[in-house]
């Protein structure tokens, strides 16, 4: 019975999957970098209770975490173009990286807020006593320690950012899932196509977690294992 599974078909279409995977990785890389930046800045604003920015960041986090990312994607791709009076029309690639960055940034803001808040206050006081200003204390004391505390939970966010790029297929962005969907609709080899798609995601997700874990080990505070 296994003979009806067409391995040759998968083999022949590896270049197509590779093209899709490249687009997925590109968007995921920007999304991960972007959510790292958003997470550090807004996480710091939350942890240090900077007026106005902290409250706005809290609203942003709650809105993103309590609404489906698929609706967020459609809102950015289809809703913003229809704002009465001021339509905002974005390129498909912009829609792609923007939506996963907004999503990942919200989750990372929480990760980094918790990480920065876990840094004992006496460390900051020591930084101030050494003559660092407020920004200097953050950059030299709170950030290096707090970011490491936040790292394990932010890994989950990065993996989710990668997985969430698959939803961009809904707005026709040609990433990995979309490539598979198109391939299936012309070949009708659904089992082969989606089997290959699933395996590709599992390998990519495992590799990403492996890479981030290696980075984590490199960055670990010496003597804390």
């Amino acid at each position, binding site marked *: 019975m296994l*003979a009806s*599974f067409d391995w040759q078909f998968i083999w022949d279409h590896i270049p197509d999957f590779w093209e899709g995977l490249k687009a997925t990785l590109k968007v995921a890389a920007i999304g991960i970098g972007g959510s790292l930046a958003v997470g550090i800045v807004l996480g710091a604003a939350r942890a240090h209770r900077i007026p106005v920015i902290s409250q706005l960041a809290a609203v942003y986090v709650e809105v993103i975490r309590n609404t489906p990312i698929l609706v967020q994607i459609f809102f950015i791709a289809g809703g913003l173009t229809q704002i009465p009076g001021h339509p905002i029309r974005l390129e498909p690639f912009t829609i792609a990286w923007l939506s996963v960055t907004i999503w990942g940034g919200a989750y990372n803001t929480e990760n980094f807020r918790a990480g920065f808040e876990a840094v004992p206050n006496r460390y900051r006081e020591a930084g101030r006593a050494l003559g660092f200003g407020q920004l200097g204390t953050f950059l030299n004391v709170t950030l290096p320690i707090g970011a490491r505390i936040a790292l394990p939970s932010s890994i989950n966010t990065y993996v989710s950012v990668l997985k969430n790029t698959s939803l961009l297929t809904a707005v026709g962005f040609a990433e990995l899932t979309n490539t598979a969907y198109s391939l299936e609709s012309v070949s009708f080899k659904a089992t082969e196509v989606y089997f290959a798609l699933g395996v590709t995601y599992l390998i990519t*997700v495992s590799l990403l977690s492996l890479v981030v874990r290696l980075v984590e080990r490199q960055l670990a505070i010496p003597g804390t294992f």
Partner: protein
Amino acid sequence: MPDWVEPVAHYMFHVGLPMTLRIAAYAVIGSVAIGIAIGTLMTIRFRPLQGLIRLYIEIWRGLPIIVTIFLVYYALPTAPVIHHRFAAVSGAALGLTLWGSAQVAEATRGAVQSIPREQHEAAAALGFGWIGRHRSVILPQAFRRLLPPLVSLVANIIQNTTIASLIGVTELLATGQRSIERLQLTPPGDSHAFAIYGALLVIFFCISFPLTRLAIFLERRLV
């Protein structure tokens, strides 16, 4: 209120929302049942079984949910041996259940292992077998720890039911999109996409926010 709002709201609340809640209910029940069962089985020190359950968890947690749903809905009907065609609603519910049960299994394993050894020993001394010990002594205590992640799971599953729209289920998101298309085709041709997608964000927020707050509250009470 403009004329177009009433029929759209009626469609979304009477067709879309019930379907969203129905799929979510199937998926939550399935995830909790399967997840608690295999998560508990995973605490038995029997390597082949542990390995098998670990594989199940890693696969369904590693795959994007949309890929799992596509596998169930598109790939199974043409798969060798299986040849089973699911209706879109069951396919979506099953896909969400595979993902959700992996989450619950992982949480259950942690919760069961957090119960001190003495509880197992005391229950065994009272004459309970493995099943009776877990059903009457261990799981009721583990459930306290399990409750906050289960509440978050409900919120997550409700959000992820929107993926069902991609295989043609008329849940909340799909009813919104169909309304947009219909408004576009009827004069004056204004789709109101901004308002409708905005409304969808608000509706999901109103469902999800109380649940995530409840999860945080339960988590704090536990500590």
